[in-house]
C-alpha cells in the first residue's frame, strides 16, 4: 500500500526538484525571475534575462511588427557574428549569413557591457548618427532570446537620454515566426569601432 506523503516530505521533494531543475539548466536564476542588474550586464552574454529594462519598454513580436509599421524606429541588431573555428580547414566553405529584421542596422558586439569609455562613445555617436540626433526617435534593440546584448544596448540608450527605447527580447527567432528576415551585413561605420566583433 502506498504511504501518504506528508507536507514536509512533499515540500522537500519540491525543493529537490527545483534544485535539480536549476542544476540542469546551469543557471543560478530561473526564467522569469532574473533581477535587473544595477548597471550594464558584464557576465555571460547568453542566459536568462530580466523581464524588463528600467526606462525602456518591452515588445513582443506583434507589438514589434506594429511599431515598425507605424513609427519607423531605428532597428539595432546587436547579435554576435559567427567566427570560423580555428581548427576548421581553410578549404571548408565558411559562409556565415546573418539574418535580421528588414531595415535593421547590424552592430555585432554593440551589446557589450564593457565600462570602456571609448566603446561607449563609439556606440553613442553611431546611434546619434542613425537617429539624426533626435532623442525622441524610437529605437528597438534586439538580438536573440536569452541574449544580454540587446538588454545592455537598451540600457545604454536609456542612459544616453533616448525617450523611446524598446527592447525586443524574442529577437530574430521571434521575428521569423511572423515575418521573413533578410540577410544583412555589419554596419560599416560600427565595424571600424569594433573590429574584433566582426564576422570572420
Amino acid at each position: 500500500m502506498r504511504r501518504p506523503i506528508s507536507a514536509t516530505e512533499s515540500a522537500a521533494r519540491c525543493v529537490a526538484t527545483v534544485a535539480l531543475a536549476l542544476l540542469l539548466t546551469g543557471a543560478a536564476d530561473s526564467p522569469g525571475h532574473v533581477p535587473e542588474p544595477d548597471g550594464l550586464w558584464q557576465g555571460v552574454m547568453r542566459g536568462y534575462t530580466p523581464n524588463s529594462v528600467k526606462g525602456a519598454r518591452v515588445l513582443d513580436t506583434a507589438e514589434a511588427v506594429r511599431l515598425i509599421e507605424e513609427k519607423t524606429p531605428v532597428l539595432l541588431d546587436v547579435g554576435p557574428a559567427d567566427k570560423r573555428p580555428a581548427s576548421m580547414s581553410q578549404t571548408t566553405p565558411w559562409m556565415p549569413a546573418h539574418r535580421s529584421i528588414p531595415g535593421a542596422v547590424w552592430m555585432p558586439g554593440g551589446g557589450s557591457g564593457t565600462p570602456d569609455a571609448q566603446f561607449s562613445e563609439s556606440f553613442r555617436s553611431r546611434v546619434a548618427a542613425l537617429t539624426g540626433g533626435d532623442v525622441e526617435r524610437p529605437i528597438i534593440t534586439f538580438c536573440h532570446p536569452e541574449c544580454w546584448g540587446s538588454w545592455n544596448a537598451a540600457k545604454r540608450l536609456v542612459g544616453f537620454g533616448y525617450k523611446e527605447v524598446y527592447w525586443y527580447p524574442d529577437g530574430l527567432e521571434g521575428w521569423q515566426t511572423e515575418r521573413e528576415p533578410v540577410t544583412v551585413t555589419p554596419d560599416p561605420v560600427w565595424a571600424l569601432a569594433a573590429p574584433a566583433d566582426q564576422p570572420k
Partner: protein
Amino acid sequence: MRATFALKLALSLGVAFAALAAAPFTAPSARAAAGDDPAQRDARWLDIAKTMFQDRARQNGEAVISLDAPQRALDASLVPMTVTLSDKIPIKGIYLIIDDNPSPVAAHFTFGPAADPRQINLRVRINSYTNVHAIAEAADGTLYETVQFVKAAGGCSAPMGMSDEEAMKGMGEIRLKLADESSDKPARATLMVRHPNFNGMQINQETRGYTPARYIQTISVTSGDNKVFDLETDISLASNPVIGFGLKPQGEIKVAVTDSEKDHWEKSFAASHLSN
C-alpha cells in the same frame, strides 16, 4: 526553447544510445522551399552551389534523391534528417547542405563497394530557418538536387545542458548495431559515436566563456576489405552523432573516427555478432 532541455539532457544521458530502431522508410516527397523571400534564399543557394560545385550542372533530383526533415524541428540542436536514394542509378556520394548555417556543408558521404546507399539518417544542428539541400552525385558525375525548408533556430549556440567535462566523458566511444543481417541481402546499421562535437558557439555556463570548437571531421566505415563510406563533416553534426546507413557486410566492420584535434578512434565489429 527551454522545454527542449529535458529532451537534450535525456538524449545526452544515453537514451539515444538505447533507441536504436532505424527510422521508418518514408516515401519521397518533393516539396518546394517555403518562405516569403525565396529570391534571397535562392541567391544564397546559388552562392553555395557555386562554391561547392563550381559550374557543374545540377538536375532536379525528384526521381533520384529525397530528403525527409521536419518542417518545424522541436530541438534545433538535434534535427533528424533522412536522405533516401533510388537504386536505379549508381550513386557515388551525397552532400547534405544546410544553407544558412555558417559552415553549410553538414555532411559529405562517399560510398564504397560495401555500401547500400539507399538510406542515410543523421541529426544536425540548425542555426536559423533555412533551406536544406540534399545532393546526390551519380557515378557518372551528374548532380541531382532536392530541397526542404526547415523551421528551426538556435541549434548552434544551444548548450548541452551539462559541463564540458561531462559532455566529453567517454569521447570516442563507438557503438554499432546491425539489423536484418543475412548473407544475401543488405543490412541496416546504426552507428553511434560519443563526441560533444563542440562548435565554438556554445557558452560554457561555468567558465563563462565559449567552449572551444572540437568536432568530428571524418568517419570511415569499412567491411572486410571494402569501403562502406567515408564521411566528411564538421560543426553542423549534432553532438553524440547517430548515423543510420545500409551496407552489404563483407566481413569485419571497422569504424574510424578523427576529430579536429586530430584525435583518432577505431573500433572493429565482427559482423556475425551484431544481429539483434
